[in-house]
């Protein structure tokens, strides 16, 4: 039978799959065997460059499928072609809809700045919170997740962005206040009150995961590098998100890490 290949042998997977690049945070979801049903995804939000899905998974509660023009969230799968509305499953290394399959061609690690020195007072003092962001809540001591979460409009309310910025900076510099902030944030999230997408962002920020622009800014600031370009990039994130994230970072780096206010200490226990 020279030269012929029976149809039954054809796998043809490579030609039919839509390529995508997956965050390593999604590995366990992608690896789940489809025989067991895989994981069914429930669409909760859609923009021109991204679709967000609830996974029911405690580690990655929301999965984002986005194009390369979207801000790269740590829980993203990047592809040139977004899934149409409708059923979508994940498992066996693929994302599957009734009409298309996405296969991972590259794995990437989400940004997680860590082990950085706290920047000197002068470096931080030089930066100012952008005045042109009226939606960014004025941050007052103490850092109160209860007061911040869900505050402001948008898929990620500005208050949540501020909190995420503060958490990422705390994780990056190994701030002693982080455990307490974590507790209060988790407790506040348990009481609901924000969008699923923002909840997912805070969920990953608790572990120090950040969008690349935030990670680059925190890294440049802590290492004493020029922050002009990184600041501009960060401020360009979202409508007001960048400014809010920056506000949160400055809060962490400007306030005294040795002093936890009574309020901050007790809130988590409430």
């Amino acid at each position, binding site marked *: *039978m*020279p030269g*012929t*290949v*029976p149809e039954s*042998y*054809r*796998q*043809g*997977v*490579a*030609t039919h*799959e839509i*390529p995508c690049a997956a965050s*390593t945070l999604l*590995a366990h979801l992608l690896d789940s065997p489809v025989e067991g049903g895989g994981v069914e995804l429930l669409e909760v939000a859609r923009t021109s460059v991204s679709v967000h899905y609830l996974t029911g998974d405690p580690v990655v509660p929301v999965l984002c499928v986005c194009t390369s023009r979207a801000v790269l969230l740590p829980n993203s799968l990047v592809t040139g072609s977004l899934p149409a509305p409708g059923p979508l499953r994940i498992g066996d*290394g693929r994302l599957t809809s009734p009409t298309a399959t996405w*296969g*991972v*061609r*590259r*794995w*990437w*690690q989400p940004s997680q700045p860590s082990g950085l020195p706290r920047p000197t007072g002068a470096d931080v003092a030089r930066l100012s919170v952008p005045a042109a962001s009226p939606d960014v809540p004025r941050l007052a001591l103490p850092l109160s997740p209860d007061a911040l979460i869900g505050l402001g409009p948008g898929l990620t309310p500005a208050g949540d962005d501020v909190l995420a910025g503060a958490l990422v900076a705390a994780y990056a510099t190994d701030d002693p206040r982080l455990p307490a902030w974590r507790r209060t944030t988790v407790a506040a999230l348990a009481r609901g009150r924000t969008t699923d997408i923002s909840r997912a962002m805070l969920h990953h920020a608790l572990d120090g995961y950040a969008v690349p622009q935030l990670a680059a800014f925190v890294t440049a600031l802590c290492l004493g590098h020029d922050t002009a370009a990184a600041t501009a990039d960060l401020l360009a994130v979202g409508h007001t998100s960048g400014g809010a994230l920056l506000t949160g970072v400055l809060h962490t780096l400007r306030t005294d890490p040795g002093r936890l206010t009574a309020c901050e200490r007790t809130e988590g226990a409430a």
Partner: protein
Amino acid sequence: MTRNLTVRRGAYVDSVTLMQVSQQISSLPGVRSALVAMATELNLDLATSMGFTLPEHTSPNEMLVAVEADDDASLDAALAQVDVALTAKASPSSLSLGGAPAPLTVRAAARAAESGVALISTPGQYAFLDAVDAIDAGLHTMVFSDNVPLAQEVALKRYAEPRGVLVMGPDCGTAVVGGVGLGFANVVRPGPVGIIAASGTGAQHLMTLLDGVHVGISHCLGVGGRDLASAVGGASTMRALDLLASDDQTKVIVVISKPPDEDVADSVRKHAASTGKPMIFGLLGVGQPDLTATAAHVAETLGLSWSSPGHLDGQVDCARSGGSLRGLFAGGTLCDEAMIITSSALGTIRSNIPLEPSWGLEESLASDGHTMIDFGDDRLTQGRPHPMIDGSIRAERMRAEIEDPTCGVLLLDVVLGLGAAPDPAAELAPLVEAASAAGVPVVVSVVGTNDDPQGRAGQASVLNAAGAWVFFSNAEAARHAIELLAKESDA
């Protein structure tokens, strides 16, 4: 012959358009000469020199239309055409300004790249030039091209030295930089192992073996097969060591190479020691641990336990009577490794890349006893695609081996990944079936990951369903082939 000169008022047109119109009118049939121009002094002189009589008073803001033609009909046609040409408007489509033209050099292309790498696969005699451009742009540079003269490789690496970038290659088939696969690369996950490889398929196999035990890769840096020879002196290997030493993600470094020049090996070891990270030398040669053993060593260094990647049983469990081993490979290092393992049990293995010079095959590559062929060898890939992309030459040879009664066992590799053929199992399966029917066991080592576009599990199951023994370790596949041959001699 007839002439006409008229002066038009209030008809300013720019001089370029007028020259075009003049040219257009001059080229009409029956027109001897034409001048359509503003009535400047210069143009009036020109008209005079063409034999026209000028009106008495003209101003430079008026337009001269002077035509000399063979007859009245041609003259009228020409004058009519002047009006048409002068009123012609630019068509709307011509307003499209078009994008920037594609860059013609790496230098021009690299202006758009802030942080990046370059992948050069231009013909070998030119690759040096393109690689220098990439190095100048501060890019780590992979030179996929083969046939780059040794002196140019040396010069290229020397050129890159002070610029702090890595030259991967020449003749580098595989690299993974920051998770991005270049050339023939498998889809692997990020992890703690940094690989420096003088062999493409060797690196691919090590990555896939580690992927099998959930150990990820930080970077896989090809350095080219000659890097550790004394002429090159390990220039890229040293640079790669430095890069991996300062890479936070890399916890252990593996160097994969044929046995290097001793002096070079010494300096590599010394250099590695200075990095403070554990380095494992995975040397490909007689008496050295095979790639699977190296993978096990890496896993253990990371404190993980190693287990064999396992296999799938084939249909035919002993060699065809009286036959010898026939290995048909796409990956040179995989062929080499199989020869090293099998020759310790079987003795002479004839090959186009023989372990001993005296074991070389005839020009025809006709099998002679135990025989292994590397179809990816430069001499067999000139003017045709690499067997990892197009398996047709190997398939042809496989058919011949099935019909050859001296073929007892077939040993193959199937290399998956980016850049490789989309579905190699589908092409091989009918041949595996035919071999099994003829009583020839087929042993296949599948080098790939489940994340590869072809999917390792799917490829393996198709080959296995057709009757093949499927291994995920090339060394284990080679050892199994020896066992199958031994069973035949028992029968």
